């Protein structure tokens, strides 16, 4: 790991997100944070610390919230996604997102859920769709469980399966970066393990940023960790270092369980 060359895939520079007057994240000069290609970066911190707010800034999901205002830059391969003229739709095609609550599209079949991102932008070629769906479902470790019932409604799946379905759905459009907002928070331990294994296998092709309030999870799967507290990014570093030799006393207090 020390000898491996690190390649910056995304980077936030002095990023501040405000909701009206209130700063959601970016106190203390804004968040400046590198996200390395094909690594897993974990964002940890107590509830309300701004980690999710930061994550949502990485693919312009705040555009939907009228009162949210983003300052600073987010670079994707060196280009600012907040620059004038950048289409957020194209950004989101490269930077996908998986949410805390498994949200399969309730009216669509399993197949159509996974194919949604392609079908709805006009891909009609059935062979191509079939291939993409199978590939995504295999990557999400769901193929064997659903291959015989692809046409049944996605709502028939369990919570853990639905979450893997949403990961498959996100992967099907071929994103470079996958943002995950507490993807295992509503799942049982077995489903959680399945998803963690999945993330580890995905990072060969995809850069992953995961928000988690579970420190063990961050320690288990991530290469880098950023610790957020009260809207401020306190510390960032290789996961091992952050958990064993934290530089900031607040980080140490948090990871040793003194608050949070």
């Amino acid at each position, binding site marked *: 790991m020390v000898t491996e060359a690190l390649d910056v895939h995304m980077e936030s520079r002095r990023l501040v997100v405000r909701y009206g007057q209130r700063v959601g994240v970016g106190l203390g000069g804004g968040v400046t944070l590198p996200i390395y290609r094909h690594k897993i970066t974990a964002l940890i911190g107590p509830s309300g610390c701004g980690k999710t707010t930061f994550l949502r800034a990485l693919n312009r999901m705040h555009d939907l919230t009228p009162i949210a205002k983003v300052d600073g830059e987010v670079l994707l391969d060196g280009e600012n996604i907040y620059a004038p003229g950048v289409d957020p739709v194209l950004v989101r095609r490269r930077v996908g997102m998986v949410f805390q609550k498994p949200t399969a599209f309730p009216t669509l079949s399993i197949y159509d859920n996974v194919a949604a*991102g392609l079908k*709805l932008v006009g891909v009609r070629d059935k062979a191509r769709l079939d291939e993409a769906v199978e590939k995504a479902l295999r990557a999400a470790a769901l193929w064997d469980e659903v291959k015989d019932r692809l046409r049944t409604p996605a709502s028939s799946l369990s919570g853990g399966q639905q979450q893997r379905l949403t990961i498959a759905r996100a992967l099907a459009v071929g994103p470079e970066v996958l943002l995950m907002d507490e993807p295992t928070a509503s799942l049982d331990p077995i489903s959680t393990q399945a998803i963690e294994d999945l993330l580890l296998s995905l990072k060969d092709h995809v850069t992953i940023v995961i928000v988690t309030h579970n420190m063990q999870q961050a320690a288990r799967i991530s290469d880098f960790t950023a610790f957020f507290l009260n809207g401020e990014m306190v510390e960032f570093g290789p996961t091992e270092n952050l958990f064993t030799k934290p530089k900031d006393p607040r980080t140490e207090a948090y990871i040793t369980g003194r608050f949070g």
Partner: protein
Amino acid sequence: MNREEGIVLKRRYRVERLMKALVAFGTLLAFLVLLLVLVYALVQGVGALNPDFFLQDMRPPGERGGGLRQAIVGTLIVDSLGLLIALPFGLAAGILLAEYPDHPINPYLRLLSDTLNGMPAILFGLLAFVLVVKPMGGFSGLSGAFALGFLMIPILARSTEGVLSLVPKEIREAGLALGLPRWRVILSLVLPAARSGLITGTLLAFARAAGEAAPLLFTAFGNPFLELNPFKPMDTLPLRLFNFAISPYEDWHRQAWAAGLVLFALIALTSLLARWASRRF
């Protein structure tokens, strides 16, 4: 539990029982009115209900028999046309209100739809008279459809806004996170998720407009004969009911009651259909 707590609890139970009784009484009162209308219409009108009532057009006073086929068919045509006119506008307004909450015209749109919702129905007739009857040079089923359409637009806008706001925002975010444009997310993910509510709202708007006579007085105008051409004056059940009710003829009075019964059944059926749709889809 000490004595004081026991007294407080007892009083709470008493108040609870009293409130329950009051609510039940109020419900009963509302039902009673409905029941009275229904029973009275049944008693007065059931004699005029026979197959001829649905299969024959009305006859002049003094002639026995006949029916109100022309009014039943006319109601279905005028109301359906009205719905066709209202749907695109009502849906569009509802979508704008629910999906683009920060759109600058929304405050005006909301004020407009509130005002229109409370507007006396006859004014919609007046509007259709000015906009359709006068330019076209005469009364017509189509002008009646416009009057009912105007009436339905704010109802549809409100119901559409309501059911769309019930769709979890996670569905929108999940769609956008796939790199879909916003209009595509609304069209292909949000509207389908709300479809049962949309169908219900549409049917209720249909039922509401089916019972209106006032907007049709100087638009659809009424017609004693079966008319299928919407460019000609057409009859509808509420219009015929009104005309028969103010006539001096016994036969017509009976048929007016029967018309009321059929109208009641039509609206009840539509509402039932709406409830069924909200469960089925």
